[in-house]
């Protein structure tokens, strides 16, 4: 190390007291050697200094923001899952407690329980079937037919000279299917039926 380097570094680091600084600056004004040494140290420091940041690939800096945004979005998702994970058991516990305390069980279930006990203890099987299961006396098939009767009420186009019972037969009887009904018609009749059907359909569409 040069003899004055320590002092020069102290000077550059602003580590000297006021008196030391004044003394150093007086010497500097008088000594050419000291001035040269100071310049050497300064140029050594400056050789390590970047006046501007080094020229870098701008694509890297352009890509930082999207990557940060992506990470933030992932963190948000993770945080939501974490909260969901921690809160789900609590929420379930609260729900169960609410149902126990305020749920319908306390009001409705005892009524059914009383009814059930009455049925079990006091009423015979016959009475049960007569009084409580009356709906089951009707034929399930009838209930099904009632429910679906609307679907069976097909609309017969106006002007079509085919009797209603042909349709009923066509739909009710397994033997009287479309093929057997139509196979009984002659070619000319079929032609008439076809024409009337198509004209009726087109009229309906126009309406």
């Amino acid at each position, binding site marked *: *190390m040069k003899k004055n*380097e*320590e002092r020069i*570094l*102290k000077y*550059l*680091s*602003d*580590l000297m007291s006021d008196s030391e600084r004044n003394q150093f600056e007086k010497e500097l004004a008088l000594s050419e050697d000291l001035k040269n040494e100071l310049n050497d*140290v300064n140029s*050594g*420091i400056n*050789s*390590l*200094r*970047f006046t501007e*940041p*080094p*020229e*870098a*690939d701008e694509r*890297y*800096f352009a890509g*930082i*923001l999207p*990557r*940060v945004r992506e*990470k*933030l979005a992932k*963190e948000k998702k993770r945080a939501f899952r974490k909260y969901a994970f921690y809160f789900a058991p609590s929420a379930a516990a609260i729900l169960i407690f609410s149902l126990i305390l305020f749920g319908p069980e306390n009001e409705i279930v005892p009524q059914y329980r009383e009814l059930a006990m009455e049925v079990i203890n006091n009423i015979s099987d016959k009475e049960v079937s007569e009084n409580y299961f009356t709906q089951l006396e009707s034929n399930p098939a009838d209930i099904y037919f009632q429910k679906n009767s609307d679907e069976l009420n097909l609309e017969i186009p106006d002007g079509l000279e085919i009797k209603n019972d042909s349709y009923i037969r066509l739909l009710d009887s397994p033997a009287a299917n479309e093929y057997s009904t139509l196979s009984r018609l002659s070619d000319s009749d079929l032609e008439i039926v076809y024409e009337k059907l198509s004209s009726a359909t087109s009229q309906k569409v126009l309406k």
Partner: protein
Amino acid sequence: MQDNDFELIKKFLEGDEVAFNLIVRKYQKKIYWHARQMLGNHLDADEVTQEVLIVLYKKLKDFNFQSSLYTWIYKIVSTRSLNQIRKKKVKNFFSMDDSENQFEAEDPKDIVADIVNREKLDLVNKALQKIPPKQREIFIMRNYEQQSYEEISKITGKSIGGLKANYFHALKKILELTNEKK
């Protein structure tokens, strides 16, 4: 500059995400280069830069407008860089790698394309990695970021006298190391 920063922060806190983008674009290079000088390689610097920006996004709501945004960001960068150095030390302690050579390998993803700059950067980095992190930090802030002791004191929370002593030791060692290399 400060007023503009405060304006951007207010906008961001009101829900304007574009304001955050503007803050990032304004400070990302300074963050990166500080981390890069502190850590000596691109990969770690990249990790710290992203971490700092994420912290910035989350913590801007806590910004109290008492210091400049620049100072506040530097505090985060400084802390994160020092943490990264500690993490690496622990990692190297438990791994079989030779910690002396951790900065020797050329970074394949280095973003500095210019060869002259790259060589200079390598020379500085190698010297910087051989001095204690606290001294390194002050050397970087004084030499590359041209910050005053007062500003550095606000960022690091250290006394100005201590910073001057640290800078003196850093200068001395860096000059010795770079003169040896030359």
